[in-house]
């Protein structure tokens, strides 16, 4: 169950900083903060329209972004939705949104160390 996954794997984040530079990673986080809400909105719109492929693509992108930063739980939830298709109710997307907010807060805290 993805709720058992940690919010973050800090080693992934540390490696990202070591490779790309701390300042660059801060800007990359800003990009994530801009892009991810759009992907969540796209998933919601696709769910409402019953557009399975649109839903899958958005979930795929969110999964990839989460993995880049080591946001483990977010990546797992996005992967489940990518593979499971359009859900029958809003609960999974609400949970995904909440997980994203938690992940972003944790990532920003790591970046401020």
């Amino acid at each position, binding site marked *: 169950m993805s709720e058992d996954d940690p919010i973050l794997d800090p080693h992934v984040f540390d490696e990202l900083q070591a490779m790309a*530079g701390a300042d660059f990673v801060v*800007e990359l986080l800003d*990009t994530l903060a801009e892009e991810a809400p759009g992907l969540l909105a796209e998933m919601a719109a696709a769910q409402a329209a019953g557009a399975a492929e649109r839903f899958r693509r958005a979930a795929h992108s969110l999964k990839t*972004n989460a993995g880049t930063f080591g946001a483990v739980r977010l990546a797992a939830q996005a992967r489940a939705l990518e593979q499971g298709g359009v859900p029958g109710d809003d609960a999974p997307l609400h949970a995904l949104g909440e997980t994203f907010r938690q992940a972003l807060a944790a990532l920003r805290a790591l970046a401020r160390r």
Partner: protein
Amino acid sequence: MSDGTHDAAAVLRFGPVEILAAERRLRVDGRDVPLGGRAFDLLLALATHRQRLVSKDELIDLVWPGLVVEDNNLQVQVSALRKALGAQAITTVAGRGYRFTLGSGAAPVASLPQGAQGAPAAAPMSASGGQAHAGAPSSLARAGTATSPARVLVADDNKVNRLLLCRSLELMGHAVTSVDNGRAALQALRGGDFELLLLDLEMPELDGFAVLEHRAEDAALRELPVIVTSSVEGVAQVARCIELGADDFLHKPVNPLLLKARVNASLESGRWRAMQRRRLAVLDPRDGDRGEAAPARLGPATRLAARLHDVEGLARAIGPEEALEAMGAWATLAREALAEQGGIDLMCHGDSVSASFAGSDGAEAALRAARDLHAMLVLLHAEREAAGLPALRCALGLASGDQLAGPGTVAGGASAVAAGALLLRAEQLAALSLQRDAGLLLDAATAQRLQGQPGLAPAVSATGQGADTLAGDDARSSLFIVRL
């Protein structure tokens, strides 16, 4: 490459010579001197082992790791370095190896680039966001083997991925352009001079699979190395990419060290393929990649013939095996010199190498090739002399006129042929030059095209009276020489 005795980011200085290891650049008196990849590897190997003699076997292992390589290839690269740095830069120790002697007596000054000690290093405006990013030096920039900078295209609709890949590649020293869909990727590839494509699969307009399909059908793009980067799951998708011609596949999130290794490998592979295509084009001019021979043509050309003197005598003196090796080294240099200046319809018959230089400026290109070959042979001669081996005498002939060339028409024969009186004439001039020890002999037609060239003069006949001509020619077909 690193041998553990120097920092891959160091700059080695020997007087006016700077070797920038990480950037793979050679500078002499502040000016960049172009060097091929292998020549640079050899330079680095010799410079970092400068305290001692390095054997040929060790140098071959360092420059061509894991490959079976003949001494000829090493000699060619040594000659290229001597041409770039001067004959005194590398000393041959007969039967034992080479020693780097540039600036000997003064210790080199090795320095690290600004920022490598922890101070911020400024980065230029870049595809990864347009801002300089100060900070601790990247582990990516420090780690592993550098390859010479390349133009790389990144195609990914995900902005986070795109920015991160661009950043990674820029830290490796490459020039990066990015696009966010497959159609833009194809447009960019067709309009630009890229050496590598990093391709996402899931993109709008045209996805990565479609880009691979278009690339496979486009002769101009087919040989471009492509690394697919994606977080798709399942072996089937990876297999499909490889079947469509992708060179490699990296799962996202991409490990930076793995990215660097795969990028370096793909660039090296692509550059070798490009070099092989250029060499093949010299031997077998075919139209692009469609398997069609270049069309038949009759037009002006200058033919350069180079001939090695008395290979039979050489074989009697040093044995047939050594003589063949020497002839191979000479022929390798000759082919390189001729091909480098655009020589086509190249023919090699052991002790003679010839090529045509087409068009109105063909004579000048042929003369440059002759001078390059002469310069390389001087270095080869010095090396052989140092090794106690007999000298190789070579003579050159240049003849101009109309040449017929095109696809071969004889079953089982050459795939491309060249014919015309100038071919035989060039060979005759080379043979006559050998007899007279005249260096480079030209016919009147070539001399006319090279009017004003320094060192051009009528060739004096063997009797010392009047201008030289080929047997059977009249006085209007005088011969000329150019002192090389």
